């Protein structure tokens, strides 16, 4: 656990990727940065470019058209990069599993570190998920 990973845990920069989501989870992610659940006290920031990202918040039931672009996003994020599946759609594709336009679930495409179920997951659930992520890295993933 050298200084750099310890620093990573204290300042996670988040990039939000939506692959066919109903924008409920996306709004809840933005809700986490508003006054009531301010994530900036943990140093977590929402940033604009993939290159600066440390964590990818992925939402949505994997739409066939969105999958190739999502893979490209994952390649471009500077490693070490964490993947967080937000919402039941990202975890298990929810009720859209048998649709003709939905590919395989997220964990078959990208290595997922944290699953946060809920439709939409409450901001408190997301903060708990991030806390578990930090503990997981501390235990030395």
């Amino acid at each position: 656990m050298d200084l750099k990973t310890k620093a990573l845990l204290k300042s996670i920069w988040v990039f939000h990727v939506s692959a066919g989501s109903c924008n409920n989870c996306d709004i809840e992610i933005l809700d986490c940065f508003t006054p009531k659940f301010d994530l900036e006290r943990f140093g977590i920031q929402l940033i604009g470019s993939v290159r600066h990202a440390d964590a990818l918040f992925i939402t949505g039931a994997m739409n066939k058209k969105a999958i190739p672009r999502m893979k490209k996003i994952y390649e471009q994020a500077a490693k070490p990069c964490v993947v967080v599946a937000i919402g039941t759609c990202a975890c298990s594709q929810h009720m859209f599993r048998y649709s003709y336009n939905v590919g395989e679930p997220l964990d078959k495409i990208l290595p997922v570190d944290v699953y946060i179920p809920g439709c939409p997951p409450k901001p408190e659930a997301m903060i708990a998920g991030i806390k578990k992520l930090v503990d997981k890295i501390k235990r030395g993933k």
Partner: protein
Amino acid sequence: MLRDKIKEKLSDKILAWYETSVKRIYFSVDKKHITETVKILFCDLGLRFITASATDLPSSFEVIYHFSNDPQGEIYSVRVLLEDKLKPEIDSIANLFPGAEWIEREIWEMLGINFKGHPNLKKLLLADDWPEGKYPLRNKQ
């Protein structure tokens, strides 16, 4: 009332006319007169085009153009039956008003009904590698 104006303007073209409730009026028109009917409804009488819905019936394809008469809150639905199931096609109304362009492209993509004269009939929302000739909303493929 608007009903009488429509009946008098389209008297020869209307095949059937029935009202399921006070605010819902369905009347069917032959395939050939569709552009004329839409021009009268949209340009002359000033009805607002809501959308067009196409269904894959056992005997034929059925395309319904829904128009809304906002002041009275009525909906006029123009029904067109396309008997030829192998090569269904109909004149496009996209050059009358640009609003219909996207709606016709969706129907073309989902059910394979060809719209003659459509400015840019391209694939709409399906993934890039969606096989040609395979239409998701058709019942038996």
